[in-house]
């Protein structure tokens, strides 16, 4: 579906990021159909934060897709169960990339009344193949087919790509900047809200590998670990969000029994 013009402010449909204290600062959520770059160093909870957003979507009855290029589904789900996510509230279907198996699973997804989180575990497939992998364009071809099929057959609304860096390692993009533009367009044209996870160096001097992703993304969510007096806190800020009256301030990010929470006061002005 092509992007559509709105006639009045507030008409855009939004997906809540599902972080208490932060959704109110971005008019209630991310505009549907946005490409969102979620960037941060290791340990900043990028995967957990994206999972949290699409888990909430599935809880609201929508089908969503998590593409894991590196972490196995066992490792990812154990992490989420340990954080307190309840997999009785939603259905989770683990798939690989085999079109015939995916088609079989799609029938089951469409029979279910609950929202479905479909997890494509390409990391486990890579482990199973064990062959000396040569970088190629094939993984992107596989991913795009999975996404297109699931969008057409199960009407997925949101996708997490974990991670862009893994895709770059697996792929031999001859003109990476051009390819990245087309990858972002691909998700946009399918009217999907897509979260691209990007590893950022710890010093935070750039948001993404090729330093183009943040320019073409509709939104950029920055996660950081900040050390003060030997105490480390997580921080979050929305560096950019198109079509949104956004508060760009830095918030402290905490995770507790009530989920993610963003709070003011995490940054000491004199430091």
């Amino acid at each position, binding site marked *: 579906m092509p992007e559509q013009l709105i006639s009045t402010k507030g008409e855009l449909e939004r997906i809540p990021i599902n972080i208490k204290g932060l959704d109110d600062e971005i008019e209630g959520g991310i505009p549907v159909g946005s490409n969102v770059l979620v960037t941060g160093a290791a340990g900043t909870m990028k995967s957990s934060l994206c999972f949290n957003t699409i888990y909430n979507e599935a809880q609201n009855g929508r089908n969503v897709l998590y593409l894991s290029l590196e972490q196995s589904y066992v490792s990812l789900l154990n992490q989420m169960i340990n954080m307190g996510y309840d*997999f009785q509230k939603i259905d989770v279907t683990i*798939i690989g990339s085999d079109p015939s198996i*995916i088609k079989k*699973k799609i029938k089951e997804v469409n029979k279910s009344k609950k929202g479905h989180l479909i997890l494509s575990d390409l990391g486990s497939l890579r482990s*199973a193949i*064990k062959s000396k992998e040569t970088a190629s364009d094939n993984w992107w071809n596989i991913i795009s087919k999975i996404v297109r099929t699931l969008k057409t057959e199960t009407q997925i609304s949101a996708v997490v790509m974990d991670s862009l860096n893994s895709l770059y390692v697996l792929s031999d993009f001859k003109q990476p900047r051009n390819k990245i533009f087309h990858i972002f367009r691909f998700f946009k044209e399918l009217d999907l809200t897509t979260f691209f996870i990007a590893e950022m160096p710890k010093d935070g001097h750039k948001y993404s590998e090729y330093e183009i992703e943040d320019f073409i993304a509709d939104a950029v969510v920055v996660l950081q670990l900040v050390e003060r007096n030997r105490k480390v806190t997580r921080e979050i800020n929305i560096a950019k969000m198109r079509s949104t009256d956004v508060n760009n301030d830095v918030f402290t990010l905490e995770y507790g029994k009530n989920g993610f929470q963003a709070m003011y006061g995490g940054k000491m002005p004199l430091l």
Partner: protein
Amino acid sequence: MIDEDGIKEEIHQIKKTLKELEHKVDKLEKDVS
């Protein structure tokens, strides 16, 4: 509910295919030698 059948089936198929290919390679190597 977590349904792992799809990925398990695919991994099983990959391992089966790899084993069959190994046998074919072994056979070809024997035939050549």
